[in-house]
């Protein structure tokens, strides 16, 4: 399952990334393998989404979330 499929409020754990370039940026922002993530909110128009990770909120587009594979 990818992060873009995670329901609002549900919790997942990051397993790996499908896009290396994107993964570098995401990991810098504290979104690493083994880290717990949950979907806090979805933008009114359905994209982007906001996730809780590493103790703060990060917003990213659905496409970007789809490169994050959850355990």
């Amino acid at each position, binding site marked *: 399952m990818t992060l873009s499929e995670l329901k609002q409020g549900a919790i997942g754990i990051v397993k790996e990334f499908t896009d*290396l370039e994107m993964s*570098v*940026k995401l990991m810098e*922002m504290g979104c690493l393998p083994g880290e717990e993530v949950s979907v806090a909110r979805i933008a*009114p128009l359905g994209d982007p989404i*906001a996730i809780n990770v590493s*103790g703060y909120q990060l917003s990213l*587009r659905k496409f970007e979330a789809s490169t994050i594979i959850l355990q």
Partner: protein
Amino acid sequence: MKADIRVALVGNPNTGKSTLFNTLTGLNQKIGNFPGVTVDKKTGYCQLADGRTAEIIDLPGTYSLYPKSQDESIVFSILADKANPLSPDLVVVIVDATNLKRNLLLYTQVADLKIPVIIALNMMDLAKKAGISIDVDLFAKKLGVPVVPISARKVEGIDKLRAAINFANKIALQEESIEVEAIAPDLIGQISKDLKLDNPYYALQLAHQHETIKFISAAESERIEELEHEFSFHSQKAQAAETIARYNFINDLLYDTVKIPETAKEQTLSNKIDKVLTHKIFGFIIFLAILLFMFQSIFSWSAYPMELIGDFFVWAQSNLHGILPAGPLTGLLVDGVLGGLSGVMVFIPQIAILFAFISILEDTGYMSRVTFMMDKLMRKVGLNGKSVVPLIGGFACAVPSIMSTRTIENWKDRMITIMVTPLITCSARLPIYVLLISLVVPNRNVWWLFNMQGLALTGMYIFSLISAITVAFVFKFIIKGRERGYFIMELPVYRMPRWNNVAYSMYERSKAFVFQAGKVIIAISVILWVLASYGPGERFRQIEQKYAQPQYKQNLKPEELTRAMNSEKLENSYAGMLGHAIEPAIKPLGFDWKIGIALITSFAAREVFVGTMATIYSVEGSAEKMESVQQKMKTAKNPETGQPVFSLAVAFSLMMFYAFAMQCASTVAVVYRETKNWKWPAIQFAYMTVLAYAASFIAYNLLK
């Protein structure tokens, strides 16, 4: 001022870095540019207890030393390049105590560059409130650096930080964070050897960034490239490995030094606010309401100070005319330079108010929610969630709005935003629209409620928004992107705005505008003044002689005589000749040479149109008296046909022209300042002029 030590402030965005900078330096700061790039360089001075002066440099906020934007690339250049004139003796890394994990990534990178470093643990008050407990002593001991808990907002711990700067080591004593060599042992070893470097992390960073940084020679860069091939170095993989190693180190560090309760209170409050502010329906309604309020305020609050500034210059000009001897030099100084200066200064209230709003919206964290809500919509037309604010600001004035596009990291999105912002109906177009609409649109109500003139004006505003979006959509396919677009963005916790920062931001932006765009505007104003006040050969003297004849002197009052003479002089000036010269070109748009003069003189600023019309139609008194211009324009007849000059077709043709044409020297100057390349203002000027001509032509021929 000469400083004894130089201190760089480094930290993530939203950590209170600028608040700390303002607190440390007070008003004792200045803003310049980092050489070669359009990144604001803020430096200030701070007195230390032993009498020494520390120069503080505020570096752009960044999450890591691997840059994602031009602003961020400055940080590495300043910190790593020892030959840089701004190379710091000490780095203060400011970290948010409520979000230590992510904040410490940057710290470990900076620490590994082996520059003496101090950690300022900011927002301690909020961390305490949220129930986060930090064993500061153990934390400092494990890292081997001084750690000062502060609250920059509440000015707590600042003295201790100043003392820590005072007693800072001259050599770096911090503990190793990760084993840098392990990431690419052979490559790091060989680069260090060939370039004679003593810091493995610096060598690794050069391997990553050698193509973009400017402070190493081409030969060195080539050598690094060769070595990368030799050792088959993969930049992104290495970076991923480094980041993972750093977070492992940080997790170990935080394990026994920091206790965080399950969910921080602050976050839950922020979530509650977000439930309303980013709600499907209320979110947009609130956003619209905030925009309306902002837009209204920029208009209404700036009206009075703008009038004051205008009046002051009129007063100064008339007084100086009285004091100084009449002559070309006085004319140049008073009408050319002072006139140009007033054109610059008059924008200050709008710039200051717009930036006050922007800094409040940014400070509270609302701006990132706007971006969050609007991103999908804006992306469709080639813009970015962050383009919303500059576009809305464009309703007041394109100049500060273009300055505010710097928050857009993606180069292509930023360029498109800059290119289309001047299409939005700015406040300088308002007097022109008001004048022309009142000339041709009847002042009566339709369907009881709506005033026709008001509807026409609203139509012009909506039209401008549609044209900006359409042009953006076209540029989406023309401009080639340099990088992949990202939208990985922190949504900071909601906070109260810091009024000090708001005031600083108003002051800074106004100052930057006056000093940087001001030069170009004054230069263009002087040129236009010369064109309008001088004519070829003997013409001006002949006009003066003509009006000196008794039949004029006897039949006309002195003021009427001067007005008639000035009007005829303008017609015969270089500007007037240009007006005549371009008449064939503008005739298809329904314009005569008089309007041609106004188009030329209003090149520097649209609002000059009304003033020029006043002079051409030799209106009584100053240009401020709009009714009288209106009267004269209304009665103006075309000498050939006997029809009124300002028909519905001509008026709308003119409005279309002003809606599209880049008749604003300030915008040209600020686009150059922001892009550092004349190509962009040139393209913008060209496409807007073409659109203006086409739109006018269509409007005139449809309504004729």
